[in-house]
């Protein structure tokens, strides 16, 4: 692509590409903002920047991820997502074909999720000053009445559920990025979860916590919730869903799958008496078919997340300050 001078021509091309791909009544008005009537009730808004390497990976790409990630952040408030905005930072010289591919994928993801990308912005930076494409998306949604999941609402005795297998996204990304083609294909689980959430909050409006265990995985997210709520947690290793291929890849790579990112999974915490109903609602949705109860919230002044291992011992599944550093001397 040679739109040379300052990327102006490139930005223009991109705008046209986006206008065509994302077409919807609000965007089509061509204003610098989208104006719409606010629905009644509690609104949620969230924003997220997406930086991923490689841009294309098994099961998705940065475009679909930018939609799913923000839709899921809206959904974790128990909300129905309505609109998205998108900001692009492109590196000059990024192949147009690749750009078209990821914009189409983004448009497809938005249509599948039933949300419109109603406004956006594009900037082009000099070659070498970006990593292909960065995308920032903002999502707006509305929460049904009586629904108020929040990280500080976990209570001792509550059940901890996950919607499916852990670590698929992170392992898929790693295997592609590092060219470690595994014997079996592991695909990212990238998906929009608001449909699953709608079914869950219909079944159990008083679900206490909803979270998507993205970066840092299940372990990190549960530690955040434990701290917010001032509780401990006890997981059962044997009950945590894990694909055999992901387990094998993690064993090879020396990664603990509980710290590996997910992009299409959620954690739900609810009162023990609601857990069967919630599990049933989750399993009724295709994205929750492998949902499971994986542990219990406990009283613990240390706020430890612990796990009963397959060998019957317990170990602390702690938050990490950075990468998984070695610990064995």
């Amino acid at each position, binding site marked *: 692509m040679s739109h040379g001078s300052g990327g102006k021509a490139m930005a223009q091309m991109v705008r046209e590409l986006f206008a065509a791909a994302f077409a919807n009544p609000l965007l089509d008005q061509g204003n610098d903002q989208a104006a719409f009537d606010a629905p009644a009730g509690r609104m949620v808004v969230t924003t997220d920047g997406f930086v991923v390497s490689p841009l294309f990976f098994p099961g998705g790409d940065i475009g679909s991820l930018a939609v799913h990630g923000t839709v899921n952040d809206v959904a974790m408030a128990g909300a129905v997502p309505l609109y998205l905005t998108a900001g692009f930072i492109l590196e000059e010289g990024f192949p147009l074909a690749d750009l078209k591919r990821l914009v189409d994928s983004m448009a497809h993801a938005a249509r599948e999720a039933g949300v419109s990308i109603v406004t956006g912005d594009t900037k082009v930076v000099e070659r070498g000053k970006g990593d292909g494409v960065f995308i920032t998306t903002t999502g707006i949604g509305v929460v049904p009445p009586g629904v108020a999941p929040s990280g500080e609402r976990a209570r001792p005795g509550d059940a901890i559920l996950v919607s499916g297998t852990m670590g698929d996204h992170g392992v898929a990304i*790693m295997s592609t990025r*590092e*060219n*470690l083609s*595994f014997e079996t294909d592991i695909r990212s689980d990238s998906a929009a979860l608001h449909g699953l959430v709608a079914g869950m909050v219909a079944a159990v409006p008083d679900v206490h916590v909803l979270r998507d265990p993205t970066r840092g995985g299940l372990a990190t997210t549960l530690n955040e919730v434990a701290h917010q709520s001032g509780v401990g947690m006890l997981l059962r290793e044997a009950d945590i869903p894990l694909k055999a291929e992901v387990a*094998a890849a993690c*064993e*090879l*790579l*020396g*990664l603990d799958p509980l710290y590996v990112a997910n992009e299409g999974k959620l954690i739900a915490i609810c009162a023990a008496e609601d857990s069967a109903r919630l599990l049933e609602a989750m399993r009724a949705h295709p994205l929750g078919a492998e949902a499971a109860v994986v542990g219990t919230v406990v009283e*613990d002044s*240390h706020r*430890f997340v*612990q796990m009963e*291992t397959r*060998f*019957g*011992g*317990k*170990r*602390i599944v*702690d938050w*990490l*300050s*950075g990468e*998984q*550093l*070695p*610990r*064995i*001397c």
Partner: protein
Amino acid sequence: MKRLRLRVRGQVQGVGFRPFLHGLAHRLALTGWVLNDGAGVLAEVQGDALERFLTALAEDAPPLARIDAIETDAIPARPDETGFAILASRRGAVTTGVAPDAAVCPACLAELFDPADRRYRYPFLNCTHCGPRFTITRALPYDRPQTAMAGFPLCPDCAAEYADPADRRFHAQPTACPACGPRLSHSIKEMLAALRGGRIVAIKGLGGSHLACDAFDAAAVERLRARKQRNGKPFALMVANAASAERFGEVGAAERALLEGVARPIVLLRRRDGAPPLPDAIASGLAWLGIMLPYTPIHHLLFHEAAGRPDGTAWLERPQDLALVMTSANPGGEPLAIGNDEARRRLDGIADLIVDHDRDILIRADDSVMRVVAGAPVVLRRGRGHVPVPIRLPRAGPSVLAVGGHQKATVCLTRCDEAFLSQHIGDLDNAATLAFLEESVAHLRRILAVEPVAVAHDLHPDFQGTRFAESLGLPTLPVQHHHAHIAAVLAEHGVNGPALGLALDGFGLGADGGSWGGEMLLAEGAGFTRLGHLAPLAQPGGDVAARQPWRMAAAALARMGRGAEIAGRFAACGPADGVRRMIEAGVNAPPTSSCGRWFDAACGLLGVRAFSPGGAGFEGEAPMALESLVLRPTVLDGGWRIDGGVLDLTPLLESLLQINAQEGADRFHGTLAAALVAWAMPELTARGFERIALSGGCLMNAVLAEGLSAGFAARGVTALLPRRAPANDGGLSLGQAWVAMQSLLE
């Protein structure tokens, strides 16, 4: 007539010191008094034989006493004084210590097996020269109400002994007899019958419970291993006496002294040819066997029962057939079970018979583990019998607390120039062990009555110790892992001032964020300089590679430029080609200068426990097996390269590909030691140093430690080995404390 006021410091309380002084004063016709206070023993003596008194004081002190200092002041005589009195204890600023637990003394053994004695076969007899101390003491001063004996009022007979300054049990706080003391839940006869019947018996002991079984019953040993979910980690044996131990292993004078000493550790003995055959499951493929001798009356009574209850003590000298596996009852890597309910709950399903008693254990302590290295004892695991004996620091300073590392954690609290290194606590990856760490800190604070002004911890941000340290509200001082290893050795050897050290270790986070473990450090006060390190090997998979030596062998092959051989050589071990790709692409394969990982690589290349099926290997398994193969270390000329402070052992490893495991073990150990000496010598010479500190987990290996010791000695350099604090991470807290204290003093 002269009168002296004496202050005696050290281990002088709870060890029969006052009756000793009382008796001595009587013999020498002196008058005066003695009392215990927070600082130790305070006495005044008056008479003509004061010189003889002072000599005897130092020379004839009771067996468990340790005199650190005697201060004397001449004071005016009291002409009208008669007799020598033992006065009531006084409290005050505590600077004395609680004694460690001690094995049954000869006088008590004589009573135990004398049918005429009122304590005949009483499982809890003890006196001021022996018995439980640290593990039953809540706080100082060391008096019965502050111990687990608080709930056992003395019967008239015991009370009379307790009050009689001439009696061995004068003020023996834990004293007991069948009429007034603790009771065992089962008879010795039942216990022995269960053991002989192949059952697993949990026996509550001093610092925790043991799981015991008949060491010759292979099925029982296998069952114990399976129920305890313990991987191949070796089990220790208990036999009746040194004569019985000699049937299994080589017992030299140094080993005998350790076996029979009051601390009664597990002693690693080199197996002997023609030993009675033991089941493989005890210590599979290892050349050393951990053996300890009985230390509580309960243990002695089991052997007595097995010997047919002979009267008297002559049988104690003769070899006995009974050999028991004795392993600490700590299921799933959690701390020793001590509370009765707790013990019962956790031991259900492991033990067939749970033998309990009603004397509480107030603080846990595992058995200590020792071996003889270069002719002198080395502590491999510090526990019962060694805590809370202080280690004297090179200088005094403000009180600091140090919390150690992640594995084999210990804590250390200093008071003046004394460092109190705790017992082995365990790996801090579960809440129960962390709670034990917190208890240990609280207990040390109580029995030492000091409040630290700062807390030292490892540099690693994700160690629980680091987080615990940060939660205390004290100033925190991070100490680099290998600096702490070296500082620990310098501290115990009293070295104050710059010194060179080799840290030969598994892993520690480096000051540069890298993975260190084979370091040449110049330690100076609170700081250090990294003068050199081992050549880096990729560590594919991080911690996984520390458990799978074949991965390190793959990294070594890649370093030799023979990465293409990885998939073929290690096809049976796991995803070998995947590991090759990780190494080549640098995916979670951080370079490490760890000596332990070079050991692993050698094991992997030689096929020595290169791979444990199911990943169930125990830590250090492969290097221990490699050490076991050594017959006579050999040195490969040209086996190493030294370049800009970096020691590269690649030629040595490459040569291992051509020889068998036994020759390889000889060559690896011999060449590694020679290479390390050659590497350090120029730095030592340039600085005019005549000694070098050696530490880190690899120094648990006696062949390496002795090779280095001899190699440096041949060049006129004294190798300082970790002896009182473990070479592995069990000694870290001592080093951290010493670094932190120096940092506060600077």
